[in-house]
């Protein structure tokens, strides 16, 4: 397995406590790695360490196989682009000037490719408009374009959907998918918008209190999520009696609703309920969501 980024027992102390507490993570080449955790779990701290904005207190990480304390790490970082927290752009410059600035920083010999980048993030028609007059979504896309200057093959995005309107979220999602598919860019996305992440990620890392709780591929997560039939009935009491009689696993959600596991025959189930005097009002298949998987994993209260 080829990993772009591997961390080993990373610890980062701040004055007010540990932000990372022995974090171990593996980002496979070609993956869209969803980095999931609540606010303050340590997602942004890890990204800051990888980007060289801060140094780990203990532990190590490798980027393209280069250890973080080696001289090669600076070369490895040249193959990486990042948008940390807010897009890093000069607000007094236009989109094109921002890209030219980044080309200068990278020491690229010409400005070829800027037009293409602007088209990729759909900012080709912004002309002389300064970045300070851009919408949040446009700034986010410009931030990604700046991160893509120099043709990196690893992109780190910290909460890219934060503060965006629905259209902006869709645009960013499509852009990330395009970059991954068309340019084979490995992407690490930190987010707590789980529904959005579930439409993108090929791998997940669940972090809590600075520790990795679980790393899992999207396929394995789907397989491990329990499927069930969600029934809405007139009364849950005859329902539970009938389900007990049938020996099925279930969980009662309310006086009129229950989830039934073990893939029962729908015909047998409805007949048994009919005989028990229970009217079935609604029945549909239900997958455990990424959100409930995460909540089961890290614990906590879910608002529904």
């Amino acid at each position, binding site marked *: 397995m080829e990993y772009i980024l591997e961390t080993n027992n990373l610890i980062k102390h701040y004055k007010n406590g540990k932000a990372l507490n022995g974090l171990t993570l593996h980002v496979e080449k070609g993956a869209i790695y969803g980095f999931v955790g609540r606010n303050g779990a340590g997602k942004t701290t890890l990204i800051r360490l990888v980007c060289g*904005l801060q140094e780990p207190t203990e532990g190590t990480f490798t980027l393209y196989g280069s250890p973080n304390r080696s001289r090669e790490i600076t070369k490895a970082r040249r193959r990486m682009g990042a948008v940390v927290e807010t897009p890093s752009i000069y607000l007094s410059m236009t989109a094109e000037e921002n890209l030219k600035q980044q080309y200068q920083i990278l020491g690229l010999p010409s400005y070829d490719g800027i037009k293409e980048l602007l088209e990729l993030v759909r900012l080709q028609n912004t002309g002389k408009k300064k970045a300070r007059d851009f919408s949040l979504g446009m700034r986010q896309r410009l931030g990604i374009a700046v991160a893509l200057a120099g043709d990196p093959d690893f992109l780190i995005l910290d909460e890219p959907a934060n503060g965006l309107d629905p259209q902006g979220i869709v645009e960013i999602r499509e852009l990330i998918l395009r970059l991954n598919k068309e340019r084979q860019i490995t992407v690490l996305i930190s987010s707590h918008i789980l529904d959005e992440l579930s439409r993108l990620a090929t791998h997940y890392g669940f972090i809590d209190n600075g520790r990795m709780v679980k790393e899992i591929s999207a396929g394995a997560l789907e397989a491990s999520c329990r499927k069930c039939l969600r029934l809405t009935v007139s009364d849950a009491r005859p329902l539970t009696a009938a389900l007990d009689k049938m020996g099925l696993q279930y969980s009662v959600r309310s006086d009129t609703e229950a989830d039934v596991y073990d893939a029962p025959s729908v015909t047998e189930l409805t007949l048994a309920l009919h005989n028990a005097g229970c009217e079935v009002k609604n029945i549909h298949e239900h997958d455990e969501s990424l959100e409930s998987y995460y909540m089961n994993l890290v614990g906590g209260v879910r608002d529904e």
Partner: protein
Amino acid sequence: MNNLLRANFFRLKRDNMFYSCLFTTLGCSIGFMILWCLENAEKGALTDLDGFYFRPSAGMGFFYAMFTCMFLSVEYSEGTIRNKLAVGHTRREVYLSSFLTVFPASLSIAVAWLIGGLAGVPFLGFLTIGFGGTLLCVAIIVGYTAAFSAINTFIGLLNDRRSATVITISVWLMLALVSGFFESALHEPETITKAIVSFGEEAPSVITEPNPYYISGIQREVYEFAVDLLPTGQSSLLQNISIERPVRMLLCSAGVTAVFTLGGLRLFARKDLK
């Protein structure tokens, strides 16, 4: 580091704050020079350009501080310093390239002041201190501009936006007050003359006695060294072209520049950035 320097100058060319400082300095320099000339012409006190040309020197530190903190703080407030580090530039390169951008930019603000001062030439003619004297003054300006740039870069890159602006201006003000205190103490005359009028005598008797505020010995040397060391002290000395120890002043500037740059590099390497 060349890439970072090119990028910094690319930004400098588009920086409104830089042009504001440049043109404000130029405008103030021209305006004040004409005002002084007209004022002194009325009094019949117009002598030569030397007395006026370097007068704005003491205020230059303020323009340097304003420009530097605004220019560097953008890197933090807009988060763009991350773009430099995340693509593999070292902190040393980021710090040095910032200093090497701020220094020539501050020098160009000084050049704007010197050009503006030429507005006095039609009234007073050229400087009478000659080519060597002018060159020495320019060398002192370059020296203290480097020292100011090193101090301002130190503050600008080690603090976030709000505190950097306040600290940079406060430091300039504090240094100006400290050097002003030393300088005024050094200007105390060695002796004071008193005129005593006694009852019944027609003419007052004049006595000369030692000035208790006069500073001598090691204390005087320390005060002189402090004025030579501080960039605000140097800029104040230049106002009246009272440059008695030019080599020491240049060495002091080099020392301040080196200490703040090396210290800044060391602290910046350890700083947690967000």
